[in-house]
């Protein structure tokens, strides 16, 4: 089984547009949306949920008021400033470490499991999809990403598939690390802007750190051709293959408004053709 993650560093470069198109082009792939705090892939692939799982990713301290003597030890030892002046727990700050439970002299504090989101297994027209939704403001998105990837793995075995296509979150932190560890290929989607270049370099460093083979895609390459040349030069120097250069085309947004991938919406467009080309190149790597 092979796994490919589409990532970007910088947000909004076109990860989801490209992953969804790949999902349509790949004959037999399981799709995993690992952007669990702002998942968008379902708006193009329209999955029907088959199974929902509660995600218990972390714990929360709970203070039993009847036992609390307000000594303040918990507040003193908590490194996350999660115990308020009037001895309640600030759920946004609590990381569920349990230090308060062991320092409390009256055993007034316990850790309770919190439901931090849901994971879903779904069916789209011709494939299965694993996705999730982190409850707004919750932590531990990395763990939820791991759960989505496990679900995707089970699906590939059941469905006799040999490929998992992962839509990654922006950034380079914990959910991104959870999305790239152990995959075969990371496709970094960038744009020819100063930020795009800066973030591309960090995303490529991340792939190197985790021994993932990199590919690069320059989206909206004609918005700034000088910067596109810089990206191409940078990649050439390091022996990184640029799998595709996608032109800016307002039809991509139009396709999104219509809930379709550009491959389905305008298969003959320059964008659709370039994405198909890029898919071929990546497949030949496997």
């Amino acid at each position, binding site marked *: 089984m092979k796994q490919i993650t589409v990532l970007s560093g910088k947000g909004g470069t076109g990860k989801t547009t490209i992953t969804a198109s790949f999902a349509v082009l790949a004959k037999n792939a399981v799709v995993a949306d690992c952007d669990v705090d702002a998942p968008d892939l379902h708006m193009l692939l329209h999955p029907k949920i088959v199974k929902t799982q509660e995600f218990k990713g972390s*714990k929360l301290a709970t203070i039993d008021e009847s036992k609390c003597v307000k000594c303040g030890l918990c507040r003193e030892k908590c490194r996350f400033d999660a115990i308020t002046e009037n001895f309640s727990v600030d759920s946004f700050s609590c990381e569920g470490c349990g230090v308060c439970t062991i320092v409390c002299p009256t055993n007034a504090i316990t850790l309770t499991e919190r439901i931090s989101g849901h994971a879903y297994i779904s069916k789209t027209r011709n494939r299965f999809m694993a996705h999730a939704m982190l409850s707004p403001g919750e932590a531990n998105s990395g763990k939820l990403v791991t759960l989505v990837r496990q679900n995707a793995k089970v699906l590939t075995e059941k469905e006799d598939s040999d490929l998992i296509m992962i839509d990654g979150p922006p950034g380079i932190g914990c959910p991104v690390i959870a999305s790239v560890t152990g995959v075969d290929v990371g496709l970094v989607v960038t744009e020819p802007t100063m930020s795009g270049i800066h*973030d591309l370099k960090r995303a490529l460093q991340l792939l190197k750190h985790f021994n993932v083979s990199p590919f690069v895609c320059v989206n909206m390459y004609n918005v700034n051709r000088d910067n596109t040349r810089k990206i191409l030069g940078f990649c050439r120097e390091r022996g990184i293959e640029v799998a595709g250069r996608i032109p800016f085309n307002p039809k991509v947004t139009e396709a999104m408004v219509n809930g379709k991938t550009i491959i389905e919406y305008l298969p003959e467009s320059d964008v659709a053709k370039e994405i198909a080309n890029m898919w071929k190149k990546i497949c030949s790597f496997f």
Partner: protein
Amino acid sequence: MIVSIASGKGGTGKTSVAVNMALSIRNVQLLDCDVEEPNAHLLLHPKISRIEPVYVPVPFVNEKLCDHCGKCSKFCQYNAIFVSPEKVLIFPELCHSCGGCTLVCPKKAITEDKHKIGTLKLASADDLGLVYGELEVGEPMAVPVIKEVKKHIDNSRNVILDSPPGTSCPVIETVKGSDFCILVTEPTPFGLHDLKIAVQVLEYMKIPLGVVVNRAGIGDKKVYEYCEDKDVPVLLEIPYQRRIAELYSTGVPFSSEMPEWREKFQTLFDEARRLVGK
């Protein structure tokens, strides 16, 4: 007054709004809290005055004192310590630095060591103060670096916080304590979907908010319908213009080349202040 700029969806123009607004008002400090991918400095080209490492405490086990009882490993909620009869393994990337292991160890064999997870940079561009952090590549936890950036908030100035995308812990850490939050979105289905999630988070945190619609003219009208329905004020629209996109791509804040926008960003800030009542 502290105003944070957030979005839900990535790439909607948070940094652009934060930088252009910062350049349009006086006595201002900009804190780039997107420590995974900080970009504000790429538009501001600031002079860096100080660079500091960001450390977090992680456990260090004195093997001479350790009797491998395993209590630390059992206590750790993050699986950052593994104890076998022969060995203790520490995984610093998993550690949340709660210090619990040092408290539960009956032999007092655990102390704490410094582990570098990022860099803090203090800089300025003319009168504008810029503070930003950079998470080390391969380190998962952005929150401690964001906390370090926010320690430099100067309350005597107008403070603008540039948030990372999404709605999970790094975003919460950034917007916590803000007087107002500006959500930057684009009028597309993805923009709307992620805007709704971000609004939920801010409502839960009781932070007043307004919306800036970037790339107005593309997509559809549903973002506006949603804002009207929810009574969320649309504070500014930035049209999709090739010139704005090109300026951004070369690292130039568009209000510097299109001065008519300065007044609009000033009004945006004044409007935020009016809505907060400061």
